[in-house]
């Protein structure tokens, strides 16, 4: 199994160490951490900038138009134009608003969403913080972000914002549970809460060519699907963008935000999306592992990046297509569909774990049972969820 050249694999680290070597020893720990943070911020800041552009361009292409193409070469400078404008825009704090919370909300949101970047393994050797319970840390950081959304909605003293705050709370309470339940199978199989261990556990290939990624097992696929749906809801993306539902609540919790604070929210949304995408890659898509053995010469962080970008493209694609749910449908979907499905998935993974010794000769049976355990509840519950809905036939007047 070919590996990328060690120096290529470690290239970012080597660069950091080279910088570090110039400095006196006592400063090194600080500079180390500082550089990690700076690089993360830089990379994801740029990713955010170009992600907004990519979203606008892809959305445009899906809608038969080219999208921004005038600022800079083919539009690449569009995010910077937006940035300059946002930075220089007047910052309005409504007279009735709660000024402290109004200010604290975007700051807290960005801080929380940045915190989650610390524990994602970006490459074989690239991990800012190797934590024993890193996954837990990740979700702890993510859970706090809805608090910021609430603060934003409440502080504006705007009725639409208030409704958005209520929606944000209801949405969070509903989707936190499936999100947490969806990754428990991964923890059960890999026996660790450490992201790097989870990635390592997904190394290798079945039959020499099918990667041992979690998503390629029945329970993993179900878990991945639940995780993606729940993370769409967690990052307030369409079709779960109810807190800022444009056609209903103007701009929801953002209604009273202008200028740079609004840009911070925007940034946090994309950071949250990137973080959840990165965690999905780590938990289900084999992290930085290459999909095929012969492609191993490409450095691991490139694989991570490619998978992340693919997921983000998926987010954009879904946003361009789907309409939005209603708040009661959203909570019902979470409680009556996703949570039971995630619980059933726990049973599936238990079975998978116990039947690990069947692999001699009974492998197809094991797969069949696991698939049935996933598909049958899905179909049954899906039918219950969509009871009474369906295409209709129409009659025509006699004359």
């Amino acid at each position, binding site marked *: 199994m070919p590996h990328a050249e060690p120096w290529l694999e470690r290239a970012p680290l080597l660069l950091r160490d080279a910088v570090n070597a110039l400095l006196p020893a006592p400063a090194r720990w600080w500079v180390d951490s500082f550089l990690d943070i700076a690089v993360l911020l830089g990379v994801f800041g740029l990713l955010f900038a170009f992600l907004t552009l990519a979203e*606008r361009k892809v959305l*445009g292409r899906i*809608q*038969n*138009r*080219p*999208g*921004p*193409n*005038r*600022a800079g070469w083919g*539009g690449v*400078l*569009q995010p*910077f*134009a*937006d*940035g*300059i*404008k*946002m930075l*220089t*825009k*007047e*910052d*309005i704090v409504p007279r009735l608003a709660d000024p402290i919370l109004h200010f604290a909300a975007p700051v807290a949101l960005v801080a929380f969403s940045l915190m989650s970047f610390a524990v994602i393994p970006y490459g074989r050797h690239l991990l800012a913080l190797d934590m024993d319970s890193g996954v837990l840390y990740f979700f702890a950081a993510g859970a706090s972000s809805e608090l910021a959304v609430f603060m934003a909605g409440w502080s504006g003293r705007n009725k639409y914002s208030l409704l958005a705050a209520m929606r944000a709370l209801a949405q969070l309470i509903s989707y936190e549970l499936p999100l947490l339940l969806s990754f428990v199978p991964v923890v059960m199989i890999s026996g660790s809460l450490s992201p790097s261990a989870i990635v390592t556990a997904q190394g290798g290939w079945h039959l020499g060519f099918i990667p041992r990624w979690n998503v390629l097992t029945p329970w993993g696929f179900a878990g991945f699907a639940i995780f993606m749906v729940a993370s769409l809801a967690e990052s307030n993306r369409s079709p779960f963008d109810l807190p800022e539902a*444009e056609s209903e609540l*103007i*701009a929801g919790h*953002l*209604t*009273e*935000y*202008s*200028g740079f604070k*609004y840009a911070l929210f925007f940034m946090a949304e994309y950071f949250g999306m990137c973080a959840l995408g990165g965690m999905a890659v780590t938990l289900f898509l084999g992290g930085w592992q290459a999909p095929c053995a012969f492609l191993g010469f490409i450095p691991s962080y490139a694989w991570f990046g490619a998978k992340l970008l693919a997921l983000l493209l998926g987010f954009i694609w879904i946003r361009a297509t789907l309409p939005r749910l209603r708040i009661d449908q959203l909570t019902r979907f979470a409680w009556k569909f996703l949570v039971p499905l995630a619980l059933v998935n726990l049973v599936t993974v238990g079975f998978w774990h116990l039947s690990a010794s069947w692999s001699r000769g009974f492998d197809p049976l094991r797969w069949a049972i696991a698939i049935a355990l996933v598909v049958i509840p899905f179909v049954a519950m899906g039918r219950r969820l969509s009871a009474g809905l369906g295409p209709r036939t129409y009659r025509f007047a006699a004359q």
Partner: protein
Amino acid sequence: MEITPEQKDELRRHGILLTSLEELYNWGRSHSVWPLQFGLACCAIEMIATSMARFDIARFGSEVFRPSPRQADLLIVSGTVTKKMAPQVVRLWNQMPEPKYCIAMGACAISGGPFKQGYNVLKGIDRYIPVDVYIPGCPPRPEALLNGLITLQAKISGQSISGPDAPRHLGSADSCEYPVPEFGGHDLEPPKNPDLWQPPAPARAPKP
């Protein structure tokens, strides 16, 4: 601190910094004009058409139609402003953060247009808020709106940070809020904002 144009030329000659800062600022503003998602009448449909695939205002970076005035840069007054609606339009304008621009799109927004004889029609939105670009037509073609946007971009790019041709928002601080007219028994009160709009005298007297 006031800088005269001569001083500014001097500065320009000496330091590139101010010029390039100014250029950067203007470039950023002019390439990221986000309109308010606000339609009034017929012209609004052409405004929507402008943002659609055929004309694609996104190419100018302006497809981000924000529903909340707090995040918008450009108020496109697209259609007839009735007297019942005028206070809302002024309120929306007041809610937008500086720097902000206003395009009066179509005959009705400029002057009341074909409906100017109506008792409930405001004869031009510039009676209450300052208008940067007027686009005549009823309704203007989507290309005409794009042309108006280009005109606006050119106007922004020509502004300098200081001096007499500085944009409105860098000037006096009190120019941001405009008084909102109130509903009276027969008309809006006041029927115009005299600080903002002083029409020229009528072109000609009635024939005896």
